[in-house]
């Protein structure tokens, strides 16, 4: 297990290196400059400022300088937030993003499993049909539309939850719901299909023939076997949540990193773009690693001791 983990972590670092290298060069191809009042500056003035930030050097030199910084744990300072270290910018805003993202993911997957399982057990009844309708609705409605609807009805009209802002559990409810919808629907659809398959398989028939009770069959045999394929979609779902949170954070004025990422790209804030790319890639790698470990826990056939 330790050897496996070590190997995986090495690959994660390699992945991050490749991702950040590609991002660095792509980012430099973006049009524009990090200067906020470019319209009012003459080319000489622009050059003068570039020189101060080392932006007048060739791109490969800038890349080496950046890489050197990272090795020493220095992610540079933001252009947009003058002199603010990127590491502080991210660390002080990462919490809210992790909270709503994590809550959305957990709620979405758990609720999705329940909805999917119920749909499969009651296959081809009105229960199944309504579960399918819910799934299709939640897949087709983008999270930002749902966010606006939740904000207007539950926030402004019914006043059940705060409209926007950050400050305690109540503030996380609406963004969590908005983010949970899509994973819920995806998981439910996957779970239903898998479980319908499993429920008609031979070993379930055997268990039934042995006279086991229905709850036991579903809990011990059907659920566990249906879960394995569902775990595979957790990685893509995590990506889904990350991209969704960029807009949802904006709508609910959550001081997170998603909104910052979008803005850093729009303002050519190079160090912040790089820092956030690395953070997002690292988060995704960790989610994938956890998924692989969870595989082994659910399915003893997949041993990860090699």
């Amino acid at each position, binding site marked *: 297990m330790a050897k496996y983990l070590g190997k995986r972590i090495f690959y994660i670092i390699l992945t991050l290196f490749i991702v950040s290298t590609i991002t660095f060069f792509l980012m430099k191809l973006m*049009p*524009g*400059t990090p*200067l*906020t*009042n*470019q*319209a*009012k*500056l*003459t*080319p*000489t*003035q622009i050059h*003068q*400022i570039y*020189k*101060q*930030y080392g932006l007048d050097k060739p791109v490969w030199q800038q890349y080496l300088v950046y890489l050197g910084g990272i090795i020493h744990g220095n992610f540079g*300072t933001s252009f*947009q*937030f*003058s*002199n*603010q270290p990127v590491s*502080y*910018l991210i660390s*002080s*805003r990462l919490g809210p993003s992790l909270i709503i993202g994590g809550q959305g993911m957990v709620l979405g997957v758990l609720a999705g499993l329940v909805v999917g399982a119920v749909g499969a057990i009651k296959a081809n009844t009105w229960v199944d049909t309504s579960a399918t309708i819910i799934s299709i609705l939640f897949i087709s409605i983008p999270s930002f539309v749902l966010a*606006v609807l939740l*904000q*207007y009805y539950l*926030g*402004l009209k019914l*006043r*059940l*939850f705060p*409209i*926007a*802002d*950050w400050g305690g559990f*109540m503030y996380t*409810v609406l963004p969590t719901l908005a983010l949970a919808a899509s994973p819920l629907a995806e998981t439910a659809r996957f779970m239903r299909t898998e479980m319908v398959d499993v429920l008609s398989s031979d070993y379930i028939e055997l268990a039934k023939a042995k006279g086991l009770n229905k709850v036991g069959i579903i809990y011990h045999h059907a659920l566990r076997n249906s879960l394995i394929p569902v775990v595979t979609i957790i990685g893509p779902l995590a990506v889904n949540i990350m991209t969704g949170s960029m807009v949802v954070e*904006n*709508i*609910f*004025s959550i*001081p997170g990193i998603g*909104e910052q990422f979008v803005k850093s790209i729009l303002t*050519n804030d190079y160090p912040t773009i790089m820092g956030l790319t690395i953070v997002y890639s690292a988060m995704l790698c960790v989610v994938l690693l956890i998924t692989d470990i969870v595989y082994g826990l659910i399915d003893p056939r997949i041993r990860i001791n090699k």
Partner: protein
Amino acid sequence: MKINSLAKLGGVALVTGLILAGCGSKSSQSKKQEISWMTPSPIATMDTSKMTDLYSAQVANGTNEGLLRMAKNNKVDPGVAKSYTTSKDGLTWTFNLRHSKWNDGTPVTAKDFVYSWQRTVSPKTASQYAYIFANIKNADKINNGKMSPSKLGVKAEGNYKFVVSLVKPQSYFKFMVTQPEFFPQNSKTVAKYGSSYATSAAKDTYNGPFVLKGWNGTNDTWTLTKNKNYWNAKSVKIKDVKFQAVKTPSTALNSYNSGKLDFTTLSGTLAANNKKNKDYVVFPEASTSYMEFNTKKIPALRNANIRKAMSLAIDKKQMVNKVMQGGDITPKGFVPADMAKHNGQDFAKQSYVKAGTDYNLAEAKTLFAKGMKQVGKKSLSLTLLGADDDDTKRASEFVQSQLTKLPGLKITTQNIPLKSKLTRAQNQQFDLVLSAWIADYPDPSNFLDLMTSDNPQNDGKWSNKQYDALIKKSESTDANNETARWNDMVQAEKILMNQQGIAPLYQQGQAALLKSSVKGVQPFPTSPQYDWAKAYVK
């Protein structure tokens, strides 16, 4: 969940009740002196040498004060300087400073201004606003690294006399010193925090009406709290101005409607939908959106009749009311209305040329045919370049639809990211381009300077000798004669409009909702846009 939230609601109701009861027993008339203000963007920095965005400048104008303070009706109030005198040649400005304090109790002296200005101009600081100091002696040389910052044309004579030497007379210098770039800086604070100076509320010192609280450098909420050490603290009635950065306009509107905000800006359709709201207000901005003609690249655009025809073909009223929908207003010329006044006369009104901003399709067609005959062309095919934000896209499409009504003129639109657009415009890689200019200080020269032949921001390279001569005269022989200078500029604007060097499309305005109980917030057409020093809740 439901029980939980109900319990919470009950708790809130109880607390609110207690607070209200507390208010009632204290004083039944005066309301809590607190405003909740919406801003579209978080604070980027509080370092006035590094500041480039309007929203940080607004906060800085609340927490700090320069030599003079921007006042309503295109005037200035005394600030840290009690009074000032200018030498006869207009080159030396002497400011007499009052005995005022930083919020930590130490005195604000002339040295703090010298320090701050030298720091901004120093190339090491890499300030994007250093150019605004260009008219101070040696500023350019220092900024280019050819001279030490200590050689800047400013000096402290004792602690309370500050003397500035200019390169050429600049009557609007009084407006410039109200801006954040010209604020004093506390050298001890800068030295203490080094590169992290002014990156959070605690790492800065303040000498303005308010002190900044609750800003950690990256968050979306902060508060301006009354500064007890401000020299004019007596006149500050408001206790707290609470800021909330809200990036989604509909969220801001929902928060306003729920009573959480006392002010919110509106844009596009949200503005149109709220025009009948009793809280609806429009604050005109000193900003003009206009179309530039590339006279260098397209020979036909050197013909004034063609340029005039294109301007006359655009219905600006319809553009403002039906297309832009926000707080924008129809233009009076290149220099925005209600920005600069002389002897009580508004510049835009005085220099108004009807044909320059009018709509008259019939006349446009005649002029266009005439112009085309003069240049010997049957048809003209042009690309209209613009940024790719929603507003500019709508503007582009509208201008396109209007211009194609001229027989023989074909327009295609091209909308690209703002920064690429700026680069292409500066390099004359366009036929027609939609541009906007926002004033740094409320003087007509801030706009008119752009259109001189050698100005790098004159993207279309329109050139008129008489115009150049008038602008030069206003900066030299007439620089110390306010009326003569003003008349030169009026003349210049008239030439620009008669020749249609550019075609103004609309003057920008900020539509907003402001609670009627909030009084005394002073809006300005230029930065800092709002001042809360005299605000109160009634």
